């Protein structure tokens, strides 16, 4: 493991990935008409190339030798027509190639992106964002590069090679047989280099993904980096990752150059051999000089397409290194997916029940929640209390169905959550988290995220309750103020308020507040709480708060420690009980 970013690269190297190739080629299928047009154009071009020398020969023999200007003009006209046809054909070809490659890029990106949207958190937990991004940008690009130049040259080279081989067999089959003996050498060469080449390309993709991962993290953590003056150390670390990228590229280059030039070398050396053998045959009068000249002329033309073909082959390997990475994403099944007979919840009352739920992010290693059972009636306010790391946020993750329980079940309005359409449920739930992610765009855009078709009054109402209005008005552009990436224009308290507004505008049946106002000043917090009291009438809410004062009016308080429920009841009941809650409560006021 060269660096920490390599940790998630668990691609297994399979040998000869014909399947991979076929699967990649499937993406070309919708463009078969374009490919057909392309092939037709390429073929026509080849034929023209073959015909042109004949025309010139005709001009020389019939026109020049016989001093016949009319022939020259006639044939000249033919050449002109061919050229103009080439102009049109060229346009058609370029358009067809680009429509195919760009369409392909579009299709694959779309498919991969849309698939990632369905994937569960575990997928994202396990991967740096930069690496996921790299697959959708750089890897897709690599495939299209292959399609862009590879397919056209594949078609034309294969045709050339077949044509030339047929011709040389017609000229002299003995020499031709000798010539074709180099073909197994080619294949052997390419086969020998194949694994090395594939590995090298995989490494280049991996290292560029590492660069992306490092970049993304650096940019996200820039404040911490600068606060701790860690620049020098970071630069060194990046240089290492960058150097790996450089090295892997050079490694791939060496292998690529080797295969190109060895193929050419073998071909040309073969030509030398043929000339030598042919000379011997002439000496024995086994063949004529003219035949040998013609023959060498043709095999001379054989190795250019062969070398080009080995380039295409290399490009294909390079593209396959990327397809593998893309298919790996596509083949990751969403853990949390709608079952085929999942029901659509039109309206929910908001009854929630946890039945003996066990859960862990890595269940083999550590269980985060054990035997959690509780019930929340519609319209109730439930507070989750407990020390940090007790498992409060995990309960919320389960409630949102970001993860499924390892054991036990969660019921909503009497339905097992696993049988409810995810989107239909989540649309009825809103959450405000301690770490509120704000999107770039205006304040209004961010509020609209909770309900894209919200009316202006709804937005204003949500902004008023959460006091977003107060700070929005202070900006010259008001609601239209661009909050910049991750809302960096706002203070963290303001970001929380904005997240709150976003949640409220969605008009949820269930509201989840995970330390939703931890960075908000007390006055604003109180204001929100008072507003919520009326606003949330009849809605279920689940609240996590460390300031116990904010939850004492909850209908039910659940005390959690080390993944278990240790107490449950109202504020009064729990104080009377003089248990954990009571101690926690007293502790707040001790000095």
């Amino acid at each position, binding site marked *: 493991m060269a660096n920490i970013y390599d*940790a998630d690269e668990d691609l297994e190297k399979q040998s000869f990935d014909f399947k991979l190739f076929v699967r990649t080629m499937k993406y070309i299928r919708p463009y078969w008409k374009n490919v057909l047009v392309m092939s037709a154009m390429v073929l026509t071009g080849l034929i023209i190339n073959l015909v042109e020398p004949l025309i*010139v020969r005709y001009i020389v023999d019939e026109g*020049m030798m016989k001093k016949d200007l009319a022939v020259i*003009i006639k044939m*000249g006209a033919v050449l002109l027509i061919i*050229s103009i046809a080439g102009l049109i*054909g*060229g346009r058609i070809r370029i358009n067809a190639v680009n429509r195919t490659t*760009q369409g392909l*890029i579009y299709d694959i*990106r779309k498919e991969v992106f*849309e698939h990632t*949207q*369905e994937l569960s958190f575990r997928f994202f937990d396990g991967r740096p964002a930069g690496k*996921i*991004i790299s697959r959708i*940008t750089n890897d897709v690009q690599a495939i299209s590069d292959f399609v862009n130049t590879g397919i056209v040259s594949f078609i034309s080279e294969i045709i050339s090679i077949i044509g030339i081989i047929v011709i040389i067999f017609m000229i002299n089959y003995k020499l031709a047989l000798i010539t074709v003996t180099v073909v197994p050498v080619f294949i052997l060469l390419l086969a020998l280099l194949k694994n090395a080449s594939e590995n090298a390309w995989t490494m280049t993709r991996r290292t560029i993904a590492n*660069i992306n*991962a490092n970049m*993304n993290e650096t*940019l996200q953590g820039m404040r911490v*980096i600068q*606060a701790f003056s*860690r620049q020098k150390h*970071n*630069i060194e670390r990046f240089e290492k990752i*960058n*150097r790996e990228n*450089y090295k892997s590229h050079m490694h791939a*280059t060496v292998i690529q*150059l080797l295969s190109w030039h060895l193929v050419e070398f073998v071909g*040309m050396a073969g030509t*030398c051999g043929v000339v030598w053998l042919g000379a011997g045959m002439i000496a024995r009068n086994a063949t004529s000089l003219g035949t040998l000249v013609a023959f060498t002329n043709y095999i*001379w033309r054989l190795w250019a397409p062969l070398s080009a073909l080995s380039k295409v082959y290399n490009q294909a390997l390079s593209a396959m290194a990327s397809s593998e990475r893309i298919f790996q994403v596509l083949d990751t099944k969403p853990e949390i997916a709608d079952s085929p007979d999942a029901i659509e919840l039109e309206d929910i009352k908001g009854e929630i029940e946890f039945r003996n739920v066990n859960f862990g*992010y890595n269940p083999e290693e550590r269980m985060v929640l054990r035997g959690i059972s509780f019930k929340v009636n519609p319209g109730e306010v439930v507070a989750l209390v407990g020390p*940090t790391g007790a498992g409060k*946020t995990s309960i919320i993750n389960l409630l949102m169905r970001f993860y499924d329980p390892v054991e036990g079940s969660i019921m909503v309005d009497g339905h097992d959550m696993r049988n409810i359409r995810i*989107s239909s449920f*989540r649309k009825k*739930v809103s959450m405000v988290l301690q770490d509120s*992610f704000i*999107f770039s765009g205006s304040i209004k855009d961010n509020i609209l995220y909770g309900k894209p078709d919200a009316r202006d009054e709804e937005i204003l109402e949500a902004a008023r309750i959460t006091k977003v209005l107060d*700070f929005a008005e202070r900006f*010259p552009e008001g609601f239209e103020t661009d909050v910049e990436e991750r809302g*960096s224009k706002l203070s*963290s*308290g*303001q970001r929380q308020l904005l997240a709150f507004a*976003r949640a409220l505008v969605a008009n949820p049946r269930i509201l989840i507040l995970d*330390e939703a106002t931890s*960075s*908000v000043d*007390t006055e604003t917090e109180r204001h929100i709480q008072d507003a919520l009291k009326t606003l949330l009438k009849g809605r279920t809410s689940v609240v996590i708060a*460390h*300031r*116990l004062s904010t939850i004492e009016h909850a209908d039910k308080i659940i005390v959690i420690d080390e993944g278990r429920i240790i107490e449950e009841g109202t504020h009064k009941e729990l*104080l009377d009980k003089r248990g954990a809650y009571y101690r*926690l409560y007293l502790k*707040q006021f001790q*000095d």
Partner: protein
Amino acid sequence: MGYLKRLLTLLKPYIFLAILAFVLLLAFTFADYVFPYILKLIIDFGIEEGNMDYLSKLVAIMFALVVARTLFGYFQGFFMEMAGQKIAYDLRNKLYAHMQYLSFGFFDRIHTGQIMSRMTGDIDCIREFLGFGLINLLLCFINFAATVVILIAMNWKLALMVMFPTPILVYIIARFGKRINPAWKEIREQMGKLTSVLQENVTGIRVVKAFAREPLEKSKFDKRNMANYHENIKRAKIEAETFPLAELLSGMNFFLLTILGGYFVIRGLITIGTFMAMEMYISGLIWPVRFSSWLINLMQRAIASAPRIFEIMDTSPDIYDLPGAVEMPGMKGHIVIENVSYNFPDGTPGLKDVNLEILPGEVVAIIGGTGSGKSTLVGLLPRFYNPTSGRILIDGVDIINIKLSSLRSRIGMVMQDTFLFSDTIKENIAYGKPGASMEEIENAAKIAQIHDFIAALPGGYETRVGERGIGLSGGQKQRIAIARAILTDPAILILDEATSSVDTATEKEIQAAMKEIMKNRTVLVIAQRLSTVKNADKILVLKDGEIVETGTHDELITREGFYSKIYELQFKGQEEIMKAAGEIAEGTGEREVT
């Protein structure tokens, strides 16, 4: 073309490699030209005359040439790629290092996704041009020029007539360069935007899913993806208009030569031999044009990428060491803030005329409403931003004159948004002091009340956190951040809502442990919970960027201001409940409430 010139300067350190590659490329091309000649010799003298000795020699020479050509080709490719890759490597390093010192305003302005796209895609475009396009462009030019000379030498009249379409061709290619450049610019920009949408989506996936907004995100991405497609198709159209036309015009050379050459031959102005030779050489006019129109495409793409790269390089950090800036290893932490005002980049005021003195070892608490300027104020101390006016002195030295690394290494910060790096817990705690001993690390963790938790993890201090690590709760992350700040043994400790996500009991424990740590340090605390700030030596109340109240808890509580109001809100109600709780607890001996 200013950008082209500047791109070429990137090649400077590797000019030797580039020249070497170019010479080898010439040799390689030359070998190709020699082959037919040797073949001719073999046929004319070897085979026809039946001289087997001579023939064997010639075949051996040809074989040697094959070997040489292969070596030329291999090393040419190798050195060329090396130059290109080195340039890309350097450029990435330079950009990365440069960005490490850029001010936050830059990162607020340019999206992470944009930067990532520039660091990969745009640098690749530049690499392909400098490492491949340029050398081959030169080769094309030389070939073209040589062919022109040869043709003119053979028969200048015919040659000039044959080259009649060439100026038009040059014009068309030049125009192509101008037309394709904006197309490439647009494509690169679109790619940056696409990456931004992607980056934001992946980092914010939790919110996306929570609001079931996947369809919206899909359409957002689709819009970018589609725009990218369209821009590329637009580009392809320009190519389709130019490339075949260039081919046609270069094909005209061939056509003209055949027609006019025929006429010249018939007229006896040239021999058929000359005609045949010219016919062979004419390809030297044709392929360089076809190849170079493609290479110019590469060049324009690189020129379109260049400003995206140079924009980053040309952004100078707003915050940098002044010449003669001093180190302050023995910082005591005496802070004086004099008439400091700060305006955000868009002009909205953040702080207005703040005056404040903090003595070494004092604990100062800052409270205030959301967006009142608390974080802005403490952010000025490590010089995350420079004040718009006024100055800040530490131990009597204006912080502008203190070396940034020295200043920041003496200030420990725990920020609101806890950011941990994808590394082990140990490395994260030691972030500000690489190479700290295990004992120091554990000690810091103990003070931050996180040691027990870490020790109980199966991986202990080697457990990975961050992007790919185990999921930590907000409070756990905050405590690791506290440990990270404590470990650097700072003279000034800034706690910006450092315990907002920590439960009250743990907060109390942290506070107790911190008491020891806070000794002999200047501490600035931002908090919403008054329980956290009550015991501070001095409490500041900020409102709309101004200090509206200062004093101790006891002083402020008697004044009818913001503080007393907050106190009322937070404690009044609770004291009654406490009374109730106390009554319940009465007789159990558990009542320790003050």
